[in-house]
């Protein structure tokens, strides 16, 4: 039992953080807002050169073949700087799904591996358009789409789909609805195989959103602590007032108890993505709750400034409000846990925190066989 990250994982996190600190600022985010695409190709290329777009891509096709535990703190850093580019969805969802499609359908291997290599080197964008997300972020920048028809998985190129753009409350997001016509030639796997793939994709997408919200929450809190030290009223820093301290302390508590939940979900997703439903739903709910509380309290502590376009805080707050509803909203995720709590075969109790197969012993004291756990 070891709940720590290793030195390599922390070093990777640090090097991404330092790259992002140079490449992504509130100025450069606001500059993206002025452009049609909203997408900074230079930043994307830098991320590809660092190996991050291909972090979860198999080594054989130019990736680093790492896993969700290696990636989770990087996703958190993307949230911390409110990175507009869809790195987390591409690097964690699209790559895994393509690799799984290659496994599931040998006829797709050549094309799939070529796409994986292009994802890794940053030359192509493939978006996994899961049915839970009616609008796809940066669809207009994508070269290919993995799309569901029922539970079948189809691959379409940009010229095979038609996009209708929608503005997001978060000016960093570029949403579109995708219209397309399924055909036998576009289908990669059937519904039976697709169901598992979509389920894993949802868990990876929700995990990525959770990790980003964890980063967003911490960034909002840090900015607001600083503001509360700088801003003076009644002749003293507003942060010396208990009423202000307690708002921000509550944010800190919410973050502290979301972090290990998100990290555990990363672990479970990496080990067994199809059985990570409860762990991921818990992570999404806990991280969203932290990010939403920070958005609320941090706006409050900024006073009227917090309600302006000029103040940077809304870059993070709006991303939080958007990601909260992305990859399944609170109702969806709480419902997955609720369903499990009502499952008569569900096993609870402290000894099953890390799953029943983990507590691999049977003293013959159990009346029933441990079968269902919230993995």
């Amino acid at each position, binding site marked *: *039992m*070891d*709940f*720590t*990250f*290793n030195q390599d994982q922390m070093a990777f996190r640090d090097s991404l953080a330092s790259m992002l600190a140079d490449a992504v600022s509130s100025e450069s985010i606001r500059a993206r807002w002025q452009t049609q695409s909203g997408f900074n190709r230079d930043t994307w290329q830098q991320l590809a050169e660092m190996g991050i777009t291909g972090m979860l891509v198999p080594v054989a096709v130019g990736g680093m073949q790492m896993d969700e*535990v290696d990636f989770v703190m990087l996703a958190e850093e993307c949230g911390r700087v409110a990175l507009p580019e869809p790195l987390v969805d591409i690097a964690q969802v699209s790559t895994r799904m393509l690799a799984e499609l290659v496994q599931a359908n040998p006829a797709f291997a050549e094309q799939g591996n070529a796409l994986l290599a292009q994802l890794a080197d940053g030359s192509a964008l493939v978006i996994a358009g899961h049915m839970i997300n009616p609008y796809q972020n940066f669809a207009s920048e994508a070269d290919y789409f993995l799309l569901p028809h029922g539970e079948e998985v189809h691959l379409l190129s940009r010229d095979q789909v038609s996009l209708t753009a929608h503005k997001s409350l978060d000016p960093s997001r570029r949403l579109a609805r995708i219209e397309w016509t399924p055909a036998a030639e576009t289908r990669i796997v059937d519904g039976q195989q697709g169901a598992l793939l979509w389920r894993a994709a949802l868990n990876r997408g929700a995990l990525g959103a959770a990790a980003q919200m964890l980063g967003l929450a911490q960034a909002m*809190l840090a900015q607001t*602590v600083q503001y*509360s*030290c700088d801003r003076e009223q009644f002749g*003293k*820093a507003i*942060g*010396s*007032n*208990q009423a*202000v*301290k*307690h708002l*921000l*302390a*509550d944010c*800190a*508590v919410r973050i*502290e*108890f*979301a*972090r*290990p*939940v998100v*990290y*555990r979900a990363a*672990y*479970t997703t990496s080990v067994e993505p199809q059985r990570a439903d409860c762990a991921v739903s*818990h992570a999404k*709910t*806990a991280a969203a709750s932290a990010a939403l509380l920070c958005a609320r309290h941090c706006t409050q502590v900024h006073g009227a400034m917090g309600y302006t376009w000029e103040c940077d805080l809304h870059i993070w707050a709006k991303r939080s409000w958007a990601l909260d509803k992305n990859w399944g909203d609170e109702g969806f995720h*709480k419902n997955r*846990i*609720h369903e499990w*709590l*009502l499952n008569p075969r569900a096993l*609870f*109790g*402290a*000894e099953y*925190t*890390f799953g029943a197969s*983990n*507590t*691999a*012993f049977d*003293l013959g*004291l159990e009346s029933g066989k441990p079968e269902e756990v919230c993995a």
Partner: protein
Amino acid sequence: MELVYTAEQNAFRAEVREWLAQHIPAEPLASFDTSEGFEQHREWEKTLAKGNWGMVTWPKAYGGRGCNLIEWLIFEEEYYRAEAPLRVNQNGIFLLGPTLMEYGSDEQKARFISKMASGEEIWAQGWSEPGAGSDMAAIRSTAVRDGDEYVINGQKVWSTRAVFADWVFCIFRTDPESSRHRGLSFVFVPLDAEGVTVRPIEQLNGLPGFAEIFFDNVRVPAFNRLGEEGEGWKIAMSTAGFERGLMLRSPARFQQSAKRLVELYRQKRQDILDSSIEDSVVRCYMDAEAYALSTYQTASRLMAGGSIGAESSCNKIFWSELDLHIYSTAMSLLGARAEIIPEQGAADDELGSWLDGFLFAQSGPIYAGTNEIQRNIIAERMLEMPRG
């Protein structure tokens, strides 16, 4: 990251489970806030000590097992799973014990630890005073040095377990010229000493769970002082760290309550009209698990050489609010029956355990430093916001 128990850890769990199954009293014990229940719980402490299960994290030399923090968590999980009796000596073994090992002389360790471990001596805590609650540095009770002794005068209040306990560990002002957190010392007093008067205070459940203690020229040997004279504040803060941090409230306690809550919810949900109950049950379950995950993460970090800091104040807020949420939700599920105190020994005793827990949960945000004080600590020490 490897969130899997080792074979040794699973074997340890099996050993704990088996021992508890064989030794837990068949009949539930009376409350340890009654004289009969107190003695029953003392017997249970002795039983635990005989099996070396009293304080698994303590070194073997003191009757422990030298367990690491993960093993401690496993022990606690099995302990609450088995619904074993509450620990009447928790002030001693979880708070004073580790403090004694850090600050005590060899002679003090020899004198106090083994009797604490064996259940022979049960400890109360004596910190708060009528004028020193959240503002603990306002302590006024004095211990004045007279030769090899201290002469103690003053009053302590809200001393948990003091009605039936044998000893109390206190903080007194040993330097009468001093103010605030300087000039305080950490001193042990036997509760049967001449000049000590203990006045029980009934808690919300009507039982004397804590007491006022009056000291009228009470003489104790200077040997009873822990650490140097004037070091009382520093030592108390390290004890408070244990209290708010890992040791006082292990996650298994809340996971067991959450598990019982889910069972109650499964039975009652068809009869419940309040649509917010579903959300409450899901959140209680998630928060209990989040507290467990956080504790495992902290334990792993400490075992890898890290330290625990102001984030322990986050723990205290989180578990005390979680406990309130669990028991409030249970009361909602019980509806109009929630207020009924069951007859002693009646079959319907489940009602009583929820009500007891509900009343006790009211104290969580208050004891061990109120949650308002914890929020100040988080803001000032963890977030580094300006002091007021």
